[in-house]
């Protein structure tokens, strides 16, 4: 017995919409089975993982806080992935954006520099992330070096640079030599949207980025060009679209957005530079981009779902004493189910007995 795959010619929008839901249910069933194997109640787990965080205003706010960097990075990555370019190094671009933006924050620290600091910090972070993203893009277009690997290697390099800055030149001189910078001034701090809430303006940036992307992809020539470059590179060439400039553009966009996420997190959440400023957001956002099937609305939902798995995972540790590894395994299963469901929408799959070719 073996698989037979046939591409489906006309895919109904209903199927496209239902597929991820089916995938989610499947993933939950698998995870529930694993939890049952561990001798725990799957129903209690579902309650703690999903229902409780979604029924409590505090958790809902935390959901938005956690989803913000993921959505910002993932929406940028969707440009790359649509064009079949594999930027795996968003974590590095995030770090570099945070470094560029923080440079201004630390250099204006203690001065009476006014309202211009924060906007300039944001711009600098976009610049930093974009420039760092352009390194693998340039190496690819100019020398044909594989972008997956260079972008990944550059993550480790960026982390070492941040480590050096936090422990060396940017260390707070009054901080007893602990590896952290001074706390940013109010002028360099991204404000919360509401008083007494941790939800900050980064969430708005993420929404804007998603909306703009939806318009670009749906309504502009550039969007069409991305799609064509990804789906049919030769056709894109015939249409006069230069693969080189597409590559540079998408890496700059995704790097810039990752860089913005970096400063948003440092300035809106952490409030200072320290050796670790990310919870693997750059890598997790790749999952988010795929879960959202590179579609802007999908990414919005996916970022909230992934944020939910993190918050639910913490809940499960606290309330049910379920290990953290289970959360990670679940994220893997969820992504696999979504990818499989997607494939089932695109292809008709049937089992054929040996020899029964058609």
């Amino acid at each position, binding site marked *: 017995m073996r698989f037979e795959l046939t591409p489906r010619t006309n895919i109904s929008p209903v199927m496209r919409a239902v597929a991820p839901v089916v995938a989610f249910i499947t993933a939950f069933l698998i995870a529930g089975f694993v939890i049952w194997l561990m001798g725990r109640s799957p129903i209690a787990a579902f309650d703690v993982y999903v229902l409780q965080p979604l029924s409590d205003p*505090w958790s809902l706010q935390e959901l938005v806080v956690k989803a913000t960097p993921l959505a910002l990075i993932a929406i940028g990555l969707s440009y790359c992935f649509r064009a079949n370019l594999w930027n795996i190094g968003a974590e590095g671009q995030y770090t570099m954006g945070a470094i560029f933006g923080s440079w201004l924050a630390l250099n204006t620290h203690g001065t009476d520099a006014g309202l211009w600091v924060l906007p300039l910090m944001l711009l600098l972070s976009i610049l930093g992330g974009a420039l760092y993203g352009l390194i693998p893009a340039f190496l690819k277009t100019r020398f044909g070096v594989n972008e997956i690997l260079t972008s990944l290697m550059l993550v480790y390099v960026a982390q070492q640079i941040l480590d050096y800055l936090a422990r060396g030149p940017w260390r707070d001189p009054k901080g*007893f030599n602990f590896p952290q910078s001074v706390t940013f001034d109010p002028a360099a701090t991204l404000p919360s949207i509401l008083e007494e809430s941790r939800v900050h303006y980064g969430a708005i940036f993420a929404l804007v980025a998603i909306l703009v992307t939806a318009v670009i992809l749906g309504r502009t020539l550039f969007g069409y060009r991305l799609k064509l470059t990804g789906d049919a590179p030769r056709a894109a060439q015939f249409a006069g679209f230069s693969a080189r400039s597409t590559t540079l553009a998408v890496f700059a966009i995704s790097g810039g957005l990752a860089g913005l996420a970096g400063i948003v997190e440092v300035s809106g959440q952490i409030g200072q530079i*320290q050796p*670790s400023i990310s*919870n*693997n957001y750059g890598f997790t956002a790749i999952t988010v981009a795929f879960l959202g099937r590179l579609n802007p609305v999908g990414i919005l939902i996916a970022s909230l779902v992934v944020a939910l798995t993190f918050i639910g995972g913490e809940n499960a*540790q606290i309330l049910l004493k379920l290990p953290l590894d289970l959360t990670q395994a679940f994220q893997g299963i969820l992504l696999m189910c979504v990818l499989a469901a997607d494939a089932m929408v695109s292809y008709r799959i049937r089992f054929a007995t040996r020899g029964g070719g058609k």
Partner: protein
Amino acid sequence: MFSGKVFGALAGAAVLALSAGGAVAQPKDKIKVGFIYVGPVGDHGWSYQHDQGRQAIEKAFPGKVTTTFVESVPEADSERAIEQLARTGHDLIFTTSFGFMEPTLKVAKKYPNIKFEHATGFKRAPNLATYAAKFHEGRYIIGQIAGKMTKTDTIGYVGAFPIPEVIAGINAFYLGAQSVNPDVKIKIVFANTWYDPAKEGDAAKALLDQGVDVLAQHTDSPAPIQAAEARGKFGFGQASDMERFAPKAQLTAIVDNWSDYYVARTKAVLDGTWKSEDTWGGLDSKMVVMTPYKNMPDDVKKLAEETEAAIRSGKLNPFKCPIIGQDGKEIECKGNGALSDEQVLGMNFYVKGIEDKIPQ
């Protein structure tokens, strides 16, 4: 993953002036105690030892205290986990890494009726205490042992990061060695990680390859001492007793023992006597414990035991003045006959005799 565990409970230096009277403490019958760990409980080092302390609480108060932990909490994203513990009815919350300092402070302000304890930091509040251990006391003892045991007069040190806690440990280790062996040289490698067994092992091998025959480590896994064992050289256990990983190589181990402290603080909450304090425990309070001295001649063992007793009784301070810096100048003595706590906790210089430079 980076874990910024740095011990630093700066005596009064940076206590937040939030002296407005907290809620009057009441004795309680049943409480919940929560822990935030920076690493996985299975790291067999830092977080593992804190978890041993958590289990000690469960044993000490059966039926009265339940405990919870959240592991591998990234420092940059820890506020939510801490607040979630506060929101789920925990009465006492321990956050066990330096990087949790600001988030713990923020949550503590928001929940004035819950007691918080932050390991290795220096910011306090009426409901936020700090605690840390004087590991450098143990490092002075192992320095003396190393100075006696080395045949090549070259001892080695695998450090995690060049932060004050590690630098103070290196200095104490070297001062100990120098006190019994004036010719001794030290070679230092920073692995730039708290926890990557293979890389820590490589760092240890690099030192052994360069003629080191007694090895100390300030990273969390047993890999360095295991490398010493494989080469027939000596080493010291870190954080926990590593004898079963290196039965022939382990001379002794410096054990982080949080159990007594955690049990005492839990009892204080049960009794209603909990106060925000700064605890910096050493050998005398058993927060730092040396495992039995083994694999060494009797005279070295005797020396180690005497030194341990002297430190415990307060007769000996590893950083007693005068301390000479690398440039040959004496370091200003701000404490009482020894460097002050602030000077030790913020240490960023090597003592005379160490030829390396602190990487910046």
